[in-house]
């Protein structure tokens, strides 16, 4: 069995174990383009990105969202993830090293059961926020 974080014992303000990613590579942008079907050349062709005023290719925002999805589905059984939203804040370049962090923001009880809301961010090696967001986990009815 896969070991997940026990959301029942978490308190507001508690951090989840961070996910530290390897440095991002251009090859990863190409793979993500092929996988996702997002063939915007800003992500794969330096000359196009430079014409657009960037120093070179940038990551697809949803690739970074994918890192956050990876972190979340490591913390919680996927079926208990009820909601996940992000805001794309900054551009990510090859070589950037992303860490995904999250903290418990709120525990709430509704007619549908108990839920834990977490704030999450994807930060680079300079602690610059690339993507920020929130997710909501169902923790059943036993808390």
């Amino acid at each position, binding site marked *: 069995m*896969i070991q997940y974080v026990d959301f029942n014992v978490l308190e507001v303000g508690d951090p989840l174990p961070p996910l530290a990613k390897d440095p991002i590579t251009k090859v990863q942008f190409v793979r993500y383009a092929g*996988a996702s*079907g997002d063939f915007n050349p800003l992500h794969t062709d330096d000359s196009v990105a430079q014409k657009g005023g960037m120093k070179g290719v940038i990551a697809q925002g949803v690739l970074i969202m994918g890192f956050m999805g990876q972190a979340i589905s490591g913390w919680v059984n996927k079926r208990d*993830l009820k909601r996940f*939203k992000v805001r794309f804040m900054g551009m990510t370049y090859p070589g950037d090293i992303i860490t995904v962090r999250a903290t418990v923001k709120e525990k709430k009880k509704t007619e549908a059961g108990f839920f834990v809301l977490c704030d999450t961010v994807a930060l680079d090696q300079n602690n610059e926020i690339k993507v920020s967001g929130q997710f909501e986990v169902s923790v059943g009815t036993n808390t």
Partner: protein
Amino acid sequence: MADISKVGTGLPPFIFEVDRVKIKELVHAIGDDNPIFVNKETARAEGYLDTPCPPTFVTLAFQEFTCAYLKAFEELGVSLENVLHGEEEYEYLREIYPGDLLTCGMVFESIVPKQTKSGQMVLITLRTSFTNQKGEEVLRARSLIIERK
């Protein structure tokens, strides 16, 4: 600028087929080695019917395979060079599995012009509902697209 008269309308329903190989490609591109997304036995041991879709898999439903974003921008009269992806949100209702045929209904929920320090922009909210071949709604998505002038 996005055509405000289109608010409340949307795209004709389109089909997105959930392909096992695409799931594998996506998790490999992300570098996500969670076995539940690729290994049927592990997924079953965790109580799933098959390997579930990763949380961001439905981003594929808007791209090249359906051209939903491109069609939406065309319908709204928005030029691709002027758009940024501002926000993305998913509400998960049921699991999505390989082989599912999802019918996707996209509505242009709101179009709001906004004046900022860096000039005029338009906030376009696209809301999409995903329904599987059994008629069950499995996911709701919201994309906030920013049109810059």
